C-alpha cells in the first residue's frame, strides 16, 4: 500500500477527532453563552430528588460490609431487628419489642407483623436465622461476623467450620426469634444494629452471583441502579413497614469530582468542606456560612506509646512527652480549630463521655521535672514515631508536635512514614516505638474504645498497655446491667489510662458539610445510621 495514503488517512482521522471536539465545544459555547447560568447535571433540580457525591462502596452485601462507605448505603436499603436513632440510642426496628432473660443471656425478639421485603414477600424469623448463619458460613468470607455475631452461641463454631448451624439462634415461630449469647453482655443489642445482623431474602441472595446489583432488602429505600464507579440511585420503598421515605429518589455520584465547585454550580445538594474552603465557610459574611453544618465525629486521633519498649516503659517519660505538647495551640494554628482537642479517650457524643476529665494538659515545668526524674534522664534512646502515609513531606501537625518537644524538652524526635498496608503489619507486630493513628467508633459504647484498645488481652491494644486495676474495672463494666454504674466504671478506667499516659490523646474530628437551604431535615450523624428517610426537599 502507498505509505502516503496511510499518512493522509491518519491525519484525516485525527482531524475529524479534533473537529468533533471543537464542534462539541462550540455547541456548548452557543448554548451556554446566552443564559450564562451554567450547564447543570440533569440529575439535580427535581423536587423529591437529593443528589450528592458518594463513595464507591466496596460492597452492598450486609454480611461483607466492614467499612463506613458500604454501611452508609446498606442501612438505607436493608434493615435489622433493632436500629440506632439520632441520639444513638437503640430503638425497635423490625423487632417491635424484645425481652432479656434474668441471667442476661437469652434475647427474645418479637417481629412487627406485616413486615415485607421490597418485592412484597413477608419477612419471618427464619429469614433472620438464615441471614446470620450465612454471614457465619466460612465460604461467605465475612470479616465482621465474628465481631458482631460471635457472642451468639454456635456462630464461632460455624466460622471455624465445626458446625453447620448456630444453636444459639432459635426460630420460635414466624414472628419470634430467640438469640442466646455466651455471657451477659450489655453491648450485645448495640451490635445487632450493624449490617452483619440484617435480614436477607434467601431466594434473592442465591439467585445470582452479583445479587447485590438487585438486592431485595427491607430498608426505606430500594436500589434502583448501581453503575460501578459512576452512580448509585436509590428509590423510595413504598412497602416500608415504618413511615415511608419523603424523598422519591437519591442520587449518589460515585466518580468523585471537585465537590465545592459542583456544589456552588448546583450540581449537588450536599458537599464536604475541606481545609481549602474552610475559611470561606466559617466567615459569617460569606453566603456559604449559612449552609454550613458542623457535627462532632465519634473518633479520636492520638500518639500511642509502645509501653514495652524503652524509653516508654517508664511512665514518667510518657507523661513528660504528654505534658510538653500544647494541643490547643497545634489545633488553633495548624488545624484552624477544625477539630476538638482530646482530653481523654472517649469522644464527645459517645455514651460515657466525661466532660469533667481534664487530662494531662500542657505544663512545661512538670514535663521537665518528670523527664529529669525518669530512669532515662541522661541516656534517653532515640525516639521514633511512626505515622501512616506516603508523602515526602510530614503532616504539619506532626512537625508542630516535634518542634514542641524540641523547644520544651530539648528532645530530638524522628518521624518515620510508613505506607498503610505495611503500617498495619508493623503495628500489629508491635514493631513501632510510638505511633500516630486514630480510632473510629464501630458502635456507640465505651467498651468499643476502652476495652478494645486498653485491655491486657485485647489484640487491638497496640500500645501493649496492661494494668490489672484497669482490667478489673473493664471486666466489671462489661457485665454491669445498671447503665449508670457501668458508665461510672468506664470513667474510672479512662481516668487511670489517661493518667498513665498510655497515649497522648490529640483530637476528636468534626465533619463540615454545606447543605443547600432547600434540603430539609438532613441530619448529619456522628456515625453510620439510616438518615435519608426523613429528608425532604422544599422550595428548590
Amino acid at each position, binding site marked *: 500500500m502507498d*505509505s502516503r495514503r*496511510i*499518512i493522509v488517512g491518519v491525519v484525516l482521522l*485525527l*482531524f475529524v*477527532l*479534533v473537529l468533533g*471536539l471543537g464542534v*462539541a*465545544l462550540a*455547541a*456548548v*459555547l452557543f448554548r*451556554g*453563552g446566552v*443564559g*450564562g447560568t*451554567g*450547564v447543570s*447535571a440533569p440529575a439535580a433540580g427535581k423536587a423529591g430528588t437529593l443528589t450528592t457525591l458518594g463513595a464507591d462502596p*466496596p*460492597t452492598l*452485601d450486609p454480611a461483607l*460490609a*466492614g*467499612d463506613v462507605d458500604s454501611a452508609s448505603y446498606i442501612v438505607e436499603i436493608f434493615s435489622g431487628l433493632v436500629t440506632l436513632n439520632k441520639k444513638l440510642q437503640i430503638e425497635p426496628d423490625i423487632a417491635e419489642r424484645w425481652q432479656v432473660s434474668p441471667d442476661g443471656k437469652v434475647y427474645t425478639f418479637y417481629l412487627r407483623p406485616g413486615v415485607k421485603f421490597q418485592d412484597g414477600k413477608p419477612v419471618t424469623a427464619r429469614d433472620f436465622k438464615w441471614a446470620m448463619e450465612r454471614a457465619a458460613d*466460612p*465460604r461467605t*468470607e465475612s*470479616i465482621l461476623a*465474628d*465481631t458482631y455475631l460471635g457472642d451468639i452461641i454456635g456462630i464461632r463454631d460455624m*466460622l*471455624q467450620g465445626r458446625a453447620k448451624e448456630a444453636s444459639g439462634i432459635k426460630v420460635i415461630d414466624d414472628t419470634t426469634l430467640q438469640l442466646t449469647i455466651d455471657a451477659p453482655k450489655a453491648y450485645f443489642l448495640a451490635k445487632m444494629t450493624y449490617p452483619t445482623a440484617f435480614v436477607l431474602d434467601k431466594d434473592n441472595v442465591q439467585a445470582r452471583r*452479583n445479587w*447485590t446489583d438487585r438486592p431485595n432488602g427491607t430498608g426505606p429505600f430500594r436500589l434502583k441502579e448501581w*453503575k*460501578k*464507579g*459512576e452512580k448509585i440511585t436509590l428509590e423510595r420503598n413504598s412497602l416500608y413497614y415504618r413511615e415511608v421515605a419523603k424523598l422519591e429518589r437519591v442520587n449518589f*455520584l*460515585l*466518580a*468523585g*469530582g*471537585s465537590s465545592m*465547585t459542583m456544589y*456552588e*454550580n448546583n*450540581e449537588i445538594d450536599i458537599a464536604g468542606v475541606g481545609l481549602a474552603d474552610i475559611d470561606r465557610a466559617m466567615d459569617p459574611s460569606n453566603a456559604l456560612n449559612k449552609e454550613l453544618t458542623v457535627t462532632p465525629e465519634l473518633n479520636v486521633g492520638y500518639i500511642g506509646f509502645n509501653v514495652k519498649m524503652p524509653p516508654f516503659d517508664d511512665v514518667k517519660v510518657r507523661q513528660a512527652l504528654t505534658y510538653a505538647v500544647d494541643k490547643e495551640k497545634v489545633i488553633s494554628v495548624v488545624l484552624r480549630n477544625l477539630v476538638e482537642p482530646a482530653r481523654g479517650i472517649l469522644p464527645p457524643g459517645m455514651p460515657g463521655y466525661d466532660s469533667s476529665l481534664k487530662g494531662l494538659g500542657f505544663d512545661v515545668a512538670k514535663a521537665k521535672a518528670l523527664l529529669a526524674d525518669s530512669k532515662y534522664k541522661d541516656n534517653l534512646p532515640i525516639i521514633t514515631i511512626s505515622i501512616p502515609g506516603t508523602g515526602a513531606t510530614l503532616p504539619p501537625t506532626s512537625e508542630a508536635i516535634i518542634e514542641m518537644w524540641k523547644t520544651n524538652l530539648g528532645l530530638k524526635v524522628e518521624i518515620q512514614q510508613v*505506607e*498503610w*498496608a505495611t503500617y*498495619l*503489619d508493623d503495628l*500489629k507486630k508491635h514493631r513501632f516505638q510510638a505511633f500516630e493513628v486514630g*480510632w473510629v467508633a464501630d458502635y456507640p459504647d465505651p467498651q468499643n474504645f476502652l476495652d478494645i484498645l486498653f485491655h491486657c488481652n485485647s*489484640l*487491638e491494644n*497496640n500500645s501493649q498497655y496492661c494494668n490489672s486495676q484497669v482490667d478489673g474495672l473493664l471486666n466489671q463494666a462489661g457485665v454491669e446491667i445498671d447503665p449508670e454504674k457501668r458508665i461510672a466504671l468506664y470513667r474510672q478506667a479512662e481516668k487511670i489510662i489517661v493518667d498513665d499516659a498510655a497515649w497522648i490523646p490529640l483530637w476528636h474530628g468534626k465533619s463540615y458539610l454545606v447543605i443547600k437551604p432547600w434540603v430539609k431535615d438532613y441530619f448529619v450523624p456522628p456515625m453510620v445510621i439510616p438518615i435519608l428517610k426523613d429528608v425532604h426537599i422544599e422550595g428548590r
Partner: protein
Amino acid sequence: MVPYILRRLLWAPVILAAVTLFTFTLGLYGPGDPVQVIMGLHVNPEVIDRIRSERGLDRPLHEQYISYVAKAIRGDLGESYTYRGQRVSDLIFGRIGVSAQLGLAATAMALAIGLPLGLIAAVKQGSWLDTAVVSATLFFYSLPIFVTAPVLQILLVLQLGLLPTGGWGGLFDVRIIMPAIVMGVPSAAVLTRLMRASTLDVLGQDYVRTARSKGLFERIVLTRHVGRNALLPVFTVVGLSLAGLVEGAFITETLFGIPGIGRLAVDSLFARDYPVVMALTLIVAVAFILANLFVDIGYTYLDPRIRYQ
C-alpha cells in the same frame, strides 16, 4: 512482514508470564495483607487465617501461581478483596474503556496542537514565533494537573458557565473537553519540543537541500520531505505513551469524577488487592506489547527503507 508479526506475537506469552510471575511474587512476599487492610486497625488472626485459606493464600507460591494462570487463561481473573464479592473482570472492563477514550481524546489534542506547532517553530527557528512557542511549551509542561484542572474549572464552569464541573458521558460528550485539555496540553508541549528538534535535524539533511535546489515549492518540501521524516521519532513516543495512557491519569480522573482505571489502580495497590493489581498489570503489559508492534509496523510505512525479516 507477516512472519515478523507472528514471531513477535509468539514472544508475547513469554513476556506476559515473566511479568505476571514477577508481580505475583512481589505481592506474595511484600509487606501487607489484603485482609488486614480491609480490617483496618481491627485485629483478628482467626478471620485472616480463615479468609486466607478460603482464598488459597496459604498454599505454596508455585501452586498459587499455576492455579492463577490456569484460571486467567480461561478468562477468570478472580475476585477482588476490596470490592467484596465482585469479579475482577466486572470491575475492570467498564472502566478501561472509559480511560482509553479519555486517553484517545487527550492524544488527539496533543497531536493536533504539538505537530504543527513544532514544525512551524523549527521552520521559523530563531524568530519571535520560535521563542514564543518554546517558552509557552516550557510553561505549559511545567504546570501540574492539580493547578490547571481547578483553574479551568473556575474559568469555564464558575465564571463563564460553559461546562459542567465534571462527570463522564463518553467520547462525544462535552464533559470530556476539560479533562482532555488538562491531560493533552502537557503532552502537546512535549510533542511540540520533540517535533521541533526532530524537524530541525531533518532540515539540515542533504536531501532537503536537494529538494529545495531542484525547485520544489517550500510547502511540498515541508510536508513531503521534512514533515514525514521528522515524524519518525515522534511516532515512537506517541505510540508508547498511548499504551501508558491505558493506566489512566489518576489525578485527572479523580478531579473530574471520571470512572476510569486510574484511581482503581492506585487504590488496589495500596489495598494489596492482588487479583486487581495482577489483572491491571496484565492489561498494561498487553497494551505495551501491542503498542510496540504497531510502532514497528508503522515505521515501515513512514520510512520505506525499514524492512522486517
